[in-house]
Protein backbone atom coordinates (compact mmCIF):
# COMPACT_ATOMS: atom_id res chain seq x y z
CA UNK A 1 0.00 0.00 0.00
CA UNK A 2 1.02 3.59 -0.54
CA UNK A 3 2.26 5.70 2.33
CA UNK A 4 3.52 9.24 2.64
CA UNK A 5 6.00 10.37 5.26
CA UNK A 6 6.56 13.96 6.26
CA UNK A 7 8.92 15.27 8.91
CA UNK A 8 9.45 16.86 11.30
CA UNK A 9 6.00 17.13 12.89
CA UNK A 10 6.78 20.41 14.64
CA UNK A 11 9.54 22.94 14.20
CA UNK A 12 10.41 26.22 15.90
CA UNK A 13 12.95 28.27 14.01
CA UNK A 14 14.34 31.80 14.48
CA UNK A 15 13.86 34.46 11.85
CA UNK A 16 16.65 34.34 9.29
CA UNK A 17 17.45 30.67 9.79
CA UNK A 18 17.29 28.10 6.97
CA UNK A 19 14.54 25.53 6.51
CA UNK A 20 14.36 22.05 5.07
CA UNK A 21 11.21 19.94 5.18
CA UNK A 22 11.23 16.52 3.61
CA UNK A 23 8.47 14.35 2.19
CA UNK A 24 8.76 10.84 0.81
CA UNK A 25 6.20 8.54 -0.76
CA UNK A 26 6.32 4.75 -0.72
CA UNK A 27 4.46 2.16 -2.73
CA UNK A 28 3.92 4.10 -5.94
CA UNK A 29 5.92 5.38 -8.88
CA UNK A 30 5.82 8.65 -10.84
CA UNK A 31 3.49 10.44 -8.44
CA UNK A 32 2.51 14.06 -8.70
CA UNK A 33 3.79 15.78 -5.56
CA UNK A 34 2.54 18.92 -3.86
CA UNK A 35 3.44 21.31 -1.04
CA UNK A 36 0.59 23.24 0.56
CA UNK A 37 0.55 25.73 3.43
CA UNK A 38 -2.41 26.19 5.72
CA UNK A 39 -2.67 29.32 7.83
CA UNK A 40 -4.85 29.23 10.94
CA UNK A 41 -8.55 29.25 9.98
CA UNK A 42 -7.79 29.44 6.28
CA UNK A 43 -7.79 27.08 3.36
CA UNK A 44 -4.86 25.28 1.85
CA UNK A 45 -2.62 27.43 -0.32
CA UNK A 46 -0.72 25.59 -3.03
CA UNK A 47 2.98 26.45 -2.90
CA UNK A 48 4.63 24.05 -5.35
CA UNK A 49 3.80 21.01 -7.40
CA UNK A 50 5.92 18.58 -9.34
CA UNK A 51 5.07 16.11 -12.10
CA UNK A 52 8.55 14.59 -12.27
CA UNK A 53 12.15 14.66 -11.10
CA UNK A 54 13.55 18.17 -11.34
CA UNK A 55 10.21 19.58 -12.56
CA UNK A 56 8.87 22.17 -10.14
CA UNK A 57 6.02 24.62 -10.65
CA UNK A 58 5.56 27.51 -8.26
CA UNK A 59 2.18 29.04 -7.61
CA UNK A 60 3.05 32.16 -5.66
CA UNK A 61 6.14 34.34 -5.26
CA UNK A 62 7.60 33.62 -1.87
CA UNK A 63 10.58 33.04 0.32
CA UNK A 64 10.47 29.30 -0.28
CA UNK A 65 11.78 26.89 -2.88
CA UNK A 66 11.17 23.23 -3.64
CA UNK A 67 13.20 20.42 -5.15
CA UNK A 68 12.53 16.89 -6.27
CA UNK A 69 15.86 15.07 -6.35
CA UNK A 70 14.27 11.61 -6.59
CA UNK A 71 10.99 10.31 -7.97
CA UNK A 72 9.37 9.93 -4.55
CA UNK A 73 11.14 12.67 -2.59
CA UNK A 74 10.00 16.27 -2.35
CA UNK A 75 11.85 18.91 -0.32
CA UNK A 76 10.70 22.36 0.77
CA UNK A 77 13.45 24.83 1.61
CA UNK A 78 14.20 28.37 2.58
CA UNK A 79 17.51 30.16 2.94
CA UNK A 80 16.20 32.71 5.44
CA UNK A 81 12.88 32.29 7.23
CA UNK A 82 10.47 35.18 7.76
CA UNK A 83 7.84 35.50 10.47
CA UNK A 84 5.20 35.20 7.75
CA UNK A 85 6.48 31.71 6.89
CA UNK A 86 4.84 30.32 10.03
CA UNK A 87 2.05 27.86 9.30
CA UNK A 88 1.07 24.25 8.81
CA UNK A 89 2.88 22.70 5.85
CA UNK A 90 1.41 19.72 4.10
CA UNK A 91 2.89 17.44 1.49
CA UNK A 92 0.58 15.43 -0.76
CA UNK A 93 0.76 13.02 -3.67
CA UNK A 94 -1.63 11.94 -6.39
CA UNK A 95 -1.71 9.46 -9.21
CA UNK A 96 -0.28 11.14 -12.28
CA UNK A 97 -2.69 11.93 -15.07
CA UNK A 98 -5.95 11.73 -13.16
CA UNK A 99 -7.57 13.36 -10.17
CA UNK A 100 -9.93 10.44 -9.69
CA UNK A 101 -8.55 9.41 -6.33
CA UNK A 102 -7.90 12.81 -4.85
CA UNK A 103 -4.76 13.64 -2.98
CA UNK A 104 -3.18 11.70 -0.13
CA UNK A 105 -1.75 14.07 2.43
CA UNK A 106 1.04 13.65 4.91
CA UNK A 107 0.57 14.38 8.59
CA UNK A 108 1.94 17.92 8.26
CA UNK A 109 4.66 20.05 9.81
CA UNK A 110 3.73 22.84 12.20
CA UNK A 111 6.34 25.57 11.64
CA UNK A 112 6.64 28.48 14.03
CA UNK A 113 9.11 31.21 13.15
CA UNK A 114 10.12 33.28 16.17
Amino acid sequence: SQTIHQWPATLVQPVGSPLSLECTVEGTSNPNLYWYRQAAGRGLQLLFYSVGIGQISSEVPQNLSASRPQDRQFILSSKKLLLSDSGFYLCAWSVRGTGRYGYTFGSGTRLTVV
Partner: protein
Amino acid sequence: EDQVTQSPEALRLQEGESSSLNCSYTVSGLRGLFWYRQDPGKGPEFLFTLYSAGEEKEKERLKATLTKKESFLHITAPKPEDSATYLCAVQALGGNDMRFGAGTRLTVKP
Protein backbone atom coordinates in the same frame (compact mmCIF):
# COMPACT_ATOMS: atom_id res chain seq x y z
CA GLU B 1 -9.43 32.12 -11.81
CA ASP B 2 -10.84 29.06 -10.07
CA GLN B 3 -12.59 29.86 -6.80
CA VAL B 4 -14.10 27.79 -4.02
CA THR B 5 -16.28 29.25 -1.24
CA GLN B 6 -17.53 27.18 1.66
CA SER B 7 -20.34 28.02 4.06
CA PRO B 8 -20.93 28.22 6.90
CA GLU B 9 -17.46 28.78 8.38
CA ALA B 10 -18.53 26.93 11.51
CA LEU B 11 -21.49 24.74 12.38
CA ARG B 12 -22.52 23.38 15.75
CA LEU B 13 -25.00 20.51 15.84
CA GLN B 14 -26.51 18.32 18.47
CA GLU B 15 -25.93 14.61 18.04
CA GLY B 16 -28.57 13.31 15.63
CA GLU B 17 -29.34 16.76 14.16
CA SER B 18 -28.92 16.47 10.38
CA SER B 19 -27.60 19.38 8.31
CA SER B 20 -25.74 20.31 5.14
CA LEU B 21 -22.48 22.05 4.27
CA ASN B 22 -22.21 24.13 1.11
CA CYS B 23 -19.39 24.49 -1.41
CA SER B 24 -19.83 27.02 -4.21
CA TYR B 25 -17.31 26.95 -7.02
CA THR B 26 -16.28 28.59 -10.25
CA VAL B 27 -13.92 26.76 -12.55
CA SER B 28 -13.14 27.00 -16.23
CA GLY B 29 -13.93 23.35 -16.77
CA LEU B 30 -14.49 20.88 -13.97
CA ARG B 31 -12.41 17.73 -13.86
CA GLY B 32 -13.53 16.88 -10.35
CA LEU B 33 -14.84 18.24 -7.06
CA PHE B 34 -13.37 16.72 -3.93
CA TRP B 35 -14.40 16.57 -0.29
CA TYR B 36 -11.91 16.02 2.52
CA ARG B 37 -12.14 15.69 6.26
CA GLN B 38 -9.41 17.26 8.42
CA ASP B 39 -8.94 16.58 12.11
CA PRO B 40 -7.02 19.14 14.22
CA GLY B 41 -3.27 18.98 13.67
CA LYS B 42 -3.53 16.39 10.90
CA GLY B 43 -3.52 16.31 7.12
CA PRO B 44 -6.81 16.19 5.21
CA GLU B 45 -8.32 12.78 4.53
CA PHE B 46 -9.96 12.14 1.18
CA LEU B 47 -13.71 11.44 1.28
CA PHE B 48 -15.32 11.78 -2.18
CA THR B 49 -14.80 12.78 -5.78
CA LEU B 50 -17.71 14.07 -7.87
CA TYR B 51 -17.37 14.59 -11.61
CA SER B 52 -20.63 15.78 -13.10
CA ALA B 53 -23.84 17.53 -12.12
CA GLY B 54 -26.37 15.18 -10.60
CA GLU B 55 -23.79 12.80 -9.23
CA GLU B 56 -24.05 11.62 -5.62
CA LYS B 57 -21.66 9.69 -3.36
CA GLU B 58 -22.30 8.24 0.09
CA LYS B 59 -20.15 7.06 2.95
CA GLU B 60 -21.70 6.16 6.28
CA ARG B 61 -23.53 9.29 7.50
CA LEU B 62 -22.15 11.51 4.72
CA LYS B 63 -23.63 12.14 1.31
CA ALA B 64 -22.14 14.48 -1.27
CA THR B 65 -24.08 15.95 -4.18
CA LEU B 66 -23.05 18.13 -7.11
CA THR B 67 -24.67 20.76 -9.33
CA LYS B 68 -23.07 22.96 -11.96
CA LYS B 69 -22.34 25.67 -9.39
CA GLU B 70 -22.17 24.02 -5.99
CA SER B 71 -21.81 20.89 -3.95
CA PHE B 72 -23.45 19.89 -0.71
CA LEU B 73 -22.19 17.58 1.98
CA HIS B 74 -25.20 16.24 3.83
CA ILE B 75 -24.63 14.82 7.29
CA THR B 76 -27.40 12.56 8.55
CA ALA B 77 -27.80 11.91 12.27
CA PRO B 78 -24.24 13.05 13.06
CA LYS B 79 -22.23 11.70 15.96
CA PRO B 80 -19.54 13.48 18.01
CA GLU B 81 -16.86 11.62 16.06
CA ASP B 82 -17.99 13.45 12.92
CA SER B 83 -16.59 16.66 14.43
CA ALA B 84 -13.86 17.92 12.08
CA THR B 85 -13.19 20.53 9.43
CA TYR B 86 -14.61 19.58 6.04
CA LEU B 87 -12.75 20.90 3.01
CA CYS B 88 -13.98 21.20 -0.55
CA ALA B 89 -11.64 21.46 -3.54
CA VAL B 90 -11.92 21.65 -7.32
CA GLN B 91 -9.61 20.52 -10.05
CA ALA B 92 -9.88 22.05 -13.50
CA LEU B 93 -9.61 20.16 -16.75
CA GLY B 94 -5.99 20.08 -17.79
CA GLY B 95 -4.88 21.20 -14.35
CA ASN B 96 -2.37 19.47 -12.13
CA ASP B 97 -3.49 20.92 -8.84
CA MET B 98 -6.54 21.58 -6.69
CA ARG B 99 -8.04 24.79 -5.32
CA PHE B 100 -9.32 24.45 -1.79
CA GLY B 101 -12.00 26.32 0.09
CA ALA B 102 -11.39 27.58 3.63
CA GLY B 103 -13.45 24.76 5.10
CA THR B 104 -16.40 24.33 7.45
CA ARG B 105 -15.57 23.50 11.05
CA LEU B 106 -18.22 21.09 12.29
CA THR B 107 -18.80 20.42 15.99
CA VAL B 108 -21.27 17.76 17.04
CA LYS B 109 -22.24 17.83 20.70
CA PRO B 110 -23.44 14.71 22.52
